[in-house]
């Protein structure tokens, strides 16, 4: 079998596998539902997810160990992932192939020539990794101040050792290098003491914006599958998903302009693998110099890596098209270096690298000037249960959309600007769109999160049972009654749907009874018997007061409880036989028709912010009870209660 056929099978297999994993990310026990499917496997294979979180958290979370397989194979083989595994790459490959069909050989060769723009992806990688490494840099900058003895000793040893080495070799070391080392140490020391480093070096993991695996998974989860959908499942909505879909389609359509546009110019994972693969044992290359220069191999070169010239190893995606297309069998994947030479390092300049590094350092502190992690925090950003405190959350979330896809009630949504620029496409709860609130006995999101931004939690922890009794239930926020919109508060109409649906026991929403005198509800008495009062005017609508919610009481009378009305005619009001009038209203006195209201209150000590009340509130536009993130468990500083909530 031809090597490219094997490649195509592999590509097809992994693309379908990803699609399958997205499809089965549905809560349920059928074989086509979540069960034990490793639905985050591609994200775990992704070494950029691993590296990013290592830089930001200094740990490698759970299944991310899988990335070791990819890293190991990439070091040995080169960027095999791009052309053999990466589902996003496969889509680009296919669309680029279709776009080049019917074009002349020369045009195809031209579309696959190396472009200087291909260095951009390395700069993007640098930028993203620098932003994720704020913590690490903070630690480095602080060494002179925190470990002065160690630092001084190390610096002296290095300087002396360097000098001794130079002297012993008798080598001529350019003077500026001799000066550079002490200057660097000087700057380091200065920064360590003078800079308010903890305000400058901040960590934010943003690799997920461009990392192809989170990107393609997010796009499938939030933009493509909800549109295509499955006939049996209820429809799913994602706020602002149009942008996710647009980015995806733009990346896909760009292949018609330049094949593998995303892979060549943008993909930070490809860039990372390009660097990783520089020592690869096997490489694509030319066997001998007897090339006829037909350029057939460049008509389908996926990486635009110039296989006929000095091959750019870091750009080569191992598509094997050159090996397959060379009619003279000159191209091979071998341990021997290419006969026409090779360039192992990416084509990047020091200035560009420095620029992207500096931007990466500067970006996060500038974004954080909005104060969203401090006193200007946005209570509209409601994180799923189990989410880490915001600074730690932003060190881990890769915006892959797994939590949003699995949520059985469809309440987890990609944030727009609720969490600031850093928080774009991170999960936030929206209780209006979904099918209910956060289900009391559901723990799905925490178990799917590949990076632990939402940590896996148990039902006991969520409900505050057993060993978690002391800590109480997990809260994502608190419900607030809007008394200006709530029917019993603002409009004298009974309701308490929120109280009915509050799932905790005892209910976090409780009511206080209030008898509100109806509009035009003061009636003058003409006469009475123990059950019926006759009133003047005859303006009552017959039966209107018989709903069970109307009561009447004597105006200015003694403190007897209001009596429930069971019926009325246009000039009489009959009360329940269970509570006849004791002191019958006299002629000329007045009775008040009252509606019995149960007005809802929220007990913040019991409310978990699940949002079921908000979802069910019959004031269906802007809800009369709404959850905001106050009192969320993940941040003590957002607590409403003096005692930890």
């Amino acid at each position, binding site marked *: 079998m031809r090597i490219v056929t094997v490649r195509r099978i592999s590509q097809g297999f992994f693309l379908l596998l990803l699609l399958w994993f997205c499809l089965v990310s549905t*809560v349920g026990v059928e074989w086509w539902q979540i069960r034990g499917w490793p639905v985050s496997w591609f994200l775990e294979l992704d070494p950029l997810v691993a590296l990013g979180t290592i830089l930001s958290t200094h740990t490698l979370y759970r299944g991310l160990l899988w990335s070791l397989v990819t890293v190991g194979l990439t070091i040995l083989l080169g960027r095999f992932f791009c052309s053999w595994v990466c589902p996003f790459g496969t889509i680009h490959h296919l669309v680029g192939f279709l776009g080049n069909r019917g074009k002349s050989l020369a045009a195809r060769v031209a579309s696959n020539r190396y472009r200087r723009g291909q260095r951009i992806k390395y700069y993007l990688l640098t930028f993203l990794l620098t932003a994720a490494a704020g913590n690490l840099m903070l630690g480095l900058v602080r060494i002179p101040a925190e470990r002065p003895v160690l630092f001084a000793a190390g610096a002296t040893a290095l300087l002396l050792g360097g000098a001794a080495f130079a002297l012993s070799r008798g080598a001529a070391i350019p003077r500026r290098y001799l000066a550079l080392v002490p200057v660097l140490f000087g700057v380091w020391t200065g920064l360590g003491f003078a800079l308010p480093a903890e305000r400058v070096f901040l960590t934010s993991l943003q690799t997920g914006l461009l990392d192809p695996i989170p990107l393609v998974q997010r796009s499938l989860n939030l933009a493509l599958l909800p549109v295509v959908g499955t006939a049996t499942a209820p429809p799913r909505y994602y706020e602002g998903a149009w942008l996710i879909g647009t980015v995806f389609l733009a990346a896909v359509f760009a292949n018609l302009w330049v094949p593998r546009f995303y892979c060549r110019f943008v993909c930070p994972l490809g860039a990372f693998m390009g660097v990783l693969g520089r020592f690869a044992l096997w490489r694509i290359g030319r066997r001998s110099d007897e090339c006829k220069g037909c350029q057939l191999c460049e008509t389908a070169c996926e990486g635009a890596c110039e296989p006929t010239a000095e091959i750019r190893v870091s750009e080569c995606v191992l598509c094997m098209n050159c090996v397959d297309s060379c009619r003279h069998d000159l191209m091979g994947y071998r341990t021997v270096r290419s006969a026409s030479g090779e360039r192992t390092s990416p084509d990047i300049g020091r200035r560009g690298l420095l620029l992207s590094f500096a931007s990466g350092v500067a970006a996060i502190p500038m974004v954080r000037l909005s104060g969203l992690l401090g006193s200007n925090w946005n209570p509209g950003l409601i994180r799923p249960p189990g989410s880490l405190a915001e600074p730690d959350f932003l060190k881990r979330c890769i915006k892959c959309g797994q939590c949003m896809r699995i949520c059985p*009630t469809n309440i987890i949504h990609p944030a727009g600007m609720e969490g600031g620029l850093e928080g774009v496409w991170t999960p936030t709860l929206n209780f209006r769109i979904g099918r209910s609130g956060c*289900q*009391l*006995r*559901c723990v799905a999101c925490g178990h799917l999160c590949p990076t632990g931004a939402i940590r896996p939690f148990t039902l006991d922890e969520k409900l505050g049972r057993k060993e978690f009794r002391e800590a109480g239930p997990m809260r994502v926020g608190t419900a607030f009654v809007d008394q200006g919109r709530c029917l019993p508060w603002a409009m004298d109409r009974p*309701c308490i*749907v929120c109280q009915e649906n509050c799932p905790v*026991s005892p209910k976090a929403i409780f009511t206080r009874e209030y008898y509100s005198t109806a509009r035009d509800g003061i009636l003058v008495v003409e006469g009475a018997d123990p059950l019926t009062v006759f009133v003047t005017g005859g303006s009552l609508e017959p039966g209107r007061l018989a709903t069970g919610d109307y009561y009447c009481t004597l105006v200015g009378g003694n403190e007897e409880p209001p009596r429930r009305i069971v019926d009325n005619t246009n000039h009489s009001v009959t009360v329940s036989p269970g509570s006849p009038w004791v002191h019958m209203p006299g002629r000329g006195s007045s009775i008040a028709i009252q509606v019995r209201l149960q007005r809802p209150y929220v007990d913040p000590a019991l409310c978990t912010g699940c949002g079921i009340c908000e979802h069910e509130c019959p004031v269906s536009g802007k809800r009369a009870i709404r959850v905001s993130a106050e009192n969320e468990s993940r941040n003590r500083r957002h607590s409403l209660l003096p005692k930890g909530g």
Partner: protein
Amino acid sequence: MDRRDFLRRAAKAGISIAAAGSLSLWLHDRVGPGRGEEEGELVRVPDFSLPEIGRRIAIVTGTNRRETVGRAIEALGGMEVFIKKGDRVLLKVNAAFASPPTLSATTNPELLAEVAGLCLKAGAVSVAVSDNPINDPVSCFTLSGIAEAARSAGAKVMLPAEGAFRTTTVPGSTLLRGWPILWEPLRGITKLIGLAPVKNHHRSGASMAMKNWYGLLGGRRNIFHQDINTIIKDLALMVRPTLVILDGTTTMMTNGPTGGSLADLKQTNTMIVSTDQVAADACGATLLGMTPADLPFITRAAAAGIGTAEFESLRPVRLSVG
């Protein structure tokens, strides 16, 4: 340009104009859009009651639901009286919440399995189980154990899909006018049995057999809570079941209708089976420590002639098992 070319072009232009003109005339709308949404054809829930059997009620005490419900149905003449060969039965459960059966917020799965089994044994060709829950439907049916119980008993669960709703207007009702109801499970059935637990309900006082029909409503049904007693009466007017089974084995005394804690429950060991839903609810009220008169929806349903609140007047069959 020669003549032939001109004529050819003129002919093409003429055809284009004719096409545009006829399309416009064909699509022309003189009136403009109407006032509101089209409701489509109205549906009516058929009457599933069996007048020849009359109003009957059996109250069986005991802890084992399979035994108590079996004895109660037997006391009313056996399931064969209600379900004939070839009947297609719908069991309307209360699956409102994603809550485990131990918390008694939903219809007990064992009770459901027993009743479904009895229906099939009596000759029913199909038994469907349905509800339009408040929480996520799949979670509700799964967590409550209802899906599994239905499957094991040979009944089919029908989840409320988007297209499963049709508009109804209930004659004589106050509120149910042009409102969507869960129609798909009702389509083509010949018998309807309601299975509801006895629960405390802060707004209406109690959630029992009549309130259980709330789960047939679609749309933003919560607006009816403003007039809860009227809507329950209207629902009882809309649904004339073959039988209601009111499960008071464990009664939710507080924190209803969601419950959430075993502390909200009380063993009351009573199974009520009746052809009269008002009588069943009136009897159920006593389990909650209330009288039927305390619950306006009972009084109003009785006044509307749906059933009787004086359930003792039906001379209930009282039995005890275990």
